């Protein structure tokens, strides 16, 4: 089966999605409720992989540039774009919480 990724945005209206049902794969117990996704979980799989690589590289952009085989400013620019996306997501989430 192909890898399935959890959508973070509603495909119908574009709003942030929340989780309503969690399931234990071992015993089948299900928990239902309204669970908000963290900002990290709302990032795209590529952005999440980038964040994980950043952590594994001890926060070194130079080490990340070596890992991805690209230049330092390219990694730096990607990090800046990611920071911008995180800020927008945080603003969206805090706006929804206020509503």
């Amino acid at each position, binding site marked *: 089966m192909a890898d399935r990724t959890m959508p973070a945005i509603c495909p119908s209206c574009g709003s942030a999605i929340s989780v309503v049902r969690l399931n234990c794969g071992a015993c089948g117990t299900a928990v239902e409720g309204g669970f908000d996704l963290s900002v990290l979980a709302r990032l795209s799989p*590529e952005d999440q992989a*980038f964040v994980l690589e950043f952590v594994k590289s001890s926060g070194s952009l130079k080490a990340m540039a070596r890992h*991805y085989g*690209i*230049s*330092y*400013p*390219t990694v730096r*620019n990607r990090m800046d774009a990611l920071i911008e996306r995180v800020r927008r997501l945080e603003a969206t989430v805090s706006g929804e919480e206020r509503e």
Partner: protein
Amino acid sequence: MADVVEAAAPEGRKLGTWLFNPFHYVAGGQALLIGLVAVLAAAVIGSLSNTHFDGVLDVHTGLEAPLWVFVFESVMDWLALGAVLFVGGALVSKSRFRALDVFGTQALARAPTLVTVVLALLPGYQRYLQYFVAKYMGQTVDVEIGALDPFVCCVALMGMLLMLVWMVALMYRAFAVSCNVRGGKAIGTFIACLLAAEAVTKALSWAALQVT
């Protein structure tokens, strides 16, 4: 995401990136080293055919000068544009960026000048240019040109023009990547910086030639 996608891109796309945006892969000290070798080699080879880079966007062949003038012109072109773009980037970019990346990528962007000076070494180009200049200036023409020389000269000139266009494209990509700018703001700032650097380097080239 484009970066990860690029890393796994097919070979054809990677070749395109290497040709028109090598700064995706190379920047900083590595670009500076490769770029400086190219800049200095172009100056030395250019001196063999009296090819001057007397301005950021200029290529002129003919005027004899000591080797230091050719080296001065090439290094000055790189430094002037790098310095102006560094200031321009600081004014318009929202990101933090390193001077090493700006100057390194701008040095590497001048690599096409190596092809330009090799084209200028073509004997047919040299002969026809001497013949053409002598005739244009109303001087005695003491150069014998071959039947193919006009064709070789045309091909060399078109090649040089192509290298100039390629170099400017590389300079823009170098600026965009090293300063993290894009869109109309990046293009406008780049053009303004290019014109400012051209004016500065033209004046300095002229001053250098007055010293000799």
